[in-house]
């Protein structure tokens, strides 16, 4: 009898430990998702304009799942210590529901990260940047976001300034090719915001224009966002799976 008492205590201890970890991870997931939703790099308008901002939906689900995990972990700890069948049954069922939501969030984040290719941003930029009569607010937002992006990261276009040469664009409709082979924001600007050497910029003389594309500046934060939600959620779910199996085993051993 003493040996099985020890086993019980060890199992209880492991389950309490497992639930403590779940609680802490839940808080961490909530914090991480709040950070992503707060749009720290200002890229939200670009993603919204692609009509594919499911990465943000995944982050919103992550916020609520994190809080749910924290609350359920407390319920789990109480249920394990008091060895209450009802509490543990409620815990298991609610945890399964949370598991399902978090699963949806992870898979959504991972899938939609894949769809954010350079071609997607290129097409959006060419069709919307500096569109002459912006059809909607999102076009103006796209223009402002691109201007800020090109200014802050000293980059031009998605793959490079030749994007503006290889493809027709809304920008080209408004600005002729001879004066604006690429937007002025692609030129190296001085403190007043004027090009250092406009002719050098138009000719493409190295040093007077920004030759690298902005795709890295976009994909870096978006990747961090997506992988943060997807892989961290995946790790939490693997741990939760083990804790839930242990809890079910414990629950089935409790007798009235």
């Amino acid at each position, binding site marked *: 009898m003493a040996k*099985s*008492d020890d086993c019980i205590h060890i199992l209880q201890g492991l389950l309490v430990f497992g639930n403590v970890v779940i609680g802490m991870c839940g808080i961490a997931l909530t914090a991480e998702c709040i950070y992503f939703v707060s749009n720290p790099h200002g890229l939200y308008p670009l993603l919204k304009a692609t009509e594919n901002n499911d990465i943000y939906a995944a982050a919103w689900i992550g916020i609520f799942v994190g809080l749910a995990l924290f609350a359920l972990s407390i319920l789990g700890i109480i249920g394990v210590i008091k*060895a*209450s*069948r009802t509490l543990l049954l409620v815990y*298991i*069922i609610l945890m*399964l529901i949370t*598991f399902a939501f978090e*699963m949806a969030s*992870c*898979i959504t984040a*991972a*899938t939609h*990260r*894949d*769809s954010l*290719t350079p*071609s997607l941003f*290129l*097409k959006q930029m*060419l*069709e919307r940047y500096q569109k002459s009569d912006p059809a909607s607010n999102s076009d103006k937002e796209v223009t402002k976001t691109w201007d800020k992006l090109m200014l802050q990261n000293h980059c031009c276009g998605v793959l*490079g*300034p*030749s994007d503006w*040469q*290889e*493809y*027709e*664009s809304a920008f*080209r409709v408004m600005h*002729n*090719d*001879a*004066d604006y*082979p690429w937007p002025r924001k692609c030129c190296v600007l001085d403190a007043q915001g004027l090009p250092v050497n406009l*002719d050098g910029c*138009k*000719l*493409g*003389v*190295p040093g007077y224009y920004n*030759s690298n594309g902005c795709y890295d500046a976009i994909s870096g934060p978006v990747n961090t966002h997506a*992988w943060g939600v*997807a*892989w961290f959620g*995946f790790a939490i*779910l*693997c741990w939760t*799976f083990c804790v*839930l*199996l242990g809890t*079910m085993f414990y*629950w*089935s*051993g*409790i*007798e*009235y």
Partner: protein
Amino acid sequence: LPTPPARLPYVPHVPPMALLGKVTATTFALERPLCVFDGHADASDAVWLAVAFANASATFRNPRSRAEVPPYKQLPTARSYMTLETAAATYSCSAPSPPVLRVGGDTACRDQGRQDPCNGPLPSPGPYRVKFLLMGCSGPKAETRWSEPILLRRAVSPGTIDPAPTRRGSDVVVIASILASLGAVLATAVLGALGVKAWGSLCRQDLGTDAFTRRSYRTHHIPPVLPRPPPPGCGCSPPGLC
């Protein structure tokens, strides 16, 4: 008869250095013809650039005086024009100058329709051929050879861009498959445990010996066994010792 202009062996060309804007949709750059006209040019002479469609370069006739120079706005009809009138001294060997010329960079003269030589943007992708012509007061004095055909950039519509991802990342497959299997195992385990419990309580069977945690222990009252009264007839005072 005026003497025919001297044919110089220089061939105008697009500069070889890496400049992203050396050929755009309506402009192109040329290397400056430095040192080419030394020995032929006087102080008052001017160097012009003749631009013609590649298939019209053979029929181009040098103008006999400055008044006959074909202007920019005749390009669609005459298939050629002359522009970039520059003093010959600008192209002499010792002149410090930026190393390239940009043809087509002046949008103001196109819009205002001035009569001066206009370096306006080229209206179509071409291809074009160019040559430099040294004009003096009495007519052309020297010319370079025609360049190779220069084809300008042609832009395609962004509708040709396909935004779909080329391949599905392996991360998605890993995450989706593992999570789906974990979820399935959990769901099966919960249903199985509930089912077994429900079946057990329906059949009222004692389900084995997983005898750990007892939440409540139903106590059975076992009445204490009373000692049997001694058989009558034995009047011993210490019990059992007769």
